[in-house]
């Protein structure tokens, strides 16, 4: 579904991604772990071109999205993204947060979008919050709204960048549960996280990034039981 070929990313002189090639197939739940600053976010953000690669190609459903002629806005409609800090729109109600993009992009009319939004809100038990503003919600609620805001676009893949890192411990569970449900329903996802238990449980493949490269990857059981790369070993020793 997503194919990355020889991806490089530099910020000025600083090389953040070094020659990454990777394929993410439909239905996979790819979990990316690695030390802070290793380029996990940058890699994820390159997948929907929030960061422009310095060189290399990224294909989404066979289309080269790094090509100048590609309509990236169209592609992004099918790639949901969830951020560490939620980024709900504070001037819009919860309902408007969810319906805004589908309506503006003319994918649904207002009624359809609201029906969809209420369906999603009911699913996460927050339908009563539809008409309130994001400022009134807890972190866990905000993040779950951010997730269904993406879902309202009917994405084919979801990108999560440390979705629980900014949350109080008692709210992490509710967000992970929702992501878990999506995974079980077959959503293709790429997830950056520090939650190793969750990675093992939900991931179908774990990638370890270090200094801008994917230095090791494996199925979860193997990955955690049998790490090869010394840097991965010491990373796992430190976090487990």
């Amino acid at each position, binding site marked *: 579904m997503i194919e990355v070929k020889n991806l490089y990313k530099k910020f000025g002189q600083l090389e953040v991604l070094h020659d990454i090639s990777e394929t993410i197939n439909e239905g996979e739940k790819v979990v990316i772990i690695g030390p802070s600053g290793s380029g996990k976010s940058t890699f994820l953000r390159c997948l929907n071109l929030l960061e422009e690669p310095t060189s290399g190609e990224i294909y989404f459903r066979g289309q080269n999205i790094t090509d100048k002629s590609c309509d990236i806005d169209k592609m*992004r*409609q099918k790639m949901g993204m969830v951020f560490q800090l939620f980024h709900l*729109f504070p001037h819009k109600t919860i309902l408007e947060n969810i319906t805004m993009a589908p309506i*503006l992009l003319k994918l649904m009319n207002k009624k359809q979008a609201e029906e969809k939004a209420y369906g999603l809100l009911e699913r996460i038990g927050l339908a009563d919050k539809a008409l309130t503003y*994001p400022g009134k919600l807890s972190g866990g609620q905000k993040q779950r709204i951010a997730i269904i805001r*993406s879902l309202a676009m009917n994405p084919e893949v979801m990108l999560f960048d440390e979705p629980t890192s900014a949350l109080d411990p008692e709210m992490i569970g509710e967000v992970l549960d929702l992501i878990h449900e999506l995974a079980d329903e077959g959503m293709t996802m790429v997830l950056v996280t520090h939650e190793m238990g969750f990675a093992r449980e939900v991931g179908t493949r774990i990638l370890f990034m270090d200094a801008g490269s994917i230095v090791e990857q494996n199925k979860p059981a193997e990955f955690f039981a049998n790490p090869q790369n010394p840097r991965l070993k010491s990373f796992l020793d430190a976090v487990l």
Partner: protein
Amino acid sequence: MFADFTHSLYKCFIYKDRYLLFIEGIQNTLLIALVAVFIGIAIGMLIAVIRVYHQQTGKFKFANAVCGLYLTVIRGTPMVVQLLIMYFVIFASARNGVPVAMLAFGINSGAYVAEIFRAGIQAVDKGQTEAGRSLGLSSAQTMRHIVLPQAIKNVLPALGNEFIVLFKETAIVGYIAIVDLTRAADIIRGQSYEAFIPLFTAAAMYLIIVIILTQLLKVFERRLAKSDRG
């Protein structure tokens, strides 16, 4: 003594219905400031968006250069000179100075409002733009529906302030034969040979209106803060 003062009052306000001149003056002052601030907001928002876009994407090179020139010229020359040029050169055939003054002050204010808006747009968290773009919205849609509404809310108090500033600055429109509050006071000063009463009347009217506007702005800011949905 008291009789003298009453007589002066009479000369300045009642005699030949001179109070009407004050009313005309204050009306013109308020009208010019009000229309000018809206023209300024329109110009300022446009310029701010162009400049921020250019900064972010490198596009709109020419438009950005034009904006830069405009800002330099407007901020580098006295308002009175701009007003005189507008009235006697650009709109040399204009009979009524009021619309010309509205435009001149609007164009002038736009340069300052542009900076207010630019700061307001840049104060909106970058994550807001990224969230909008990641949903598939275009940069224009993201600007219009996500960034600008938040930026406008951020800068409303500063825009209210700009209106108060403009309200006082319009006191120079007498140069192009408009009877504003200042000019009204000056005319009556000349006709009545009384300086104290008409000039202090004008000053008091400016002051009272500024105080009222400042208070309104404070109430408004408090309401805005209360409705701040975080």
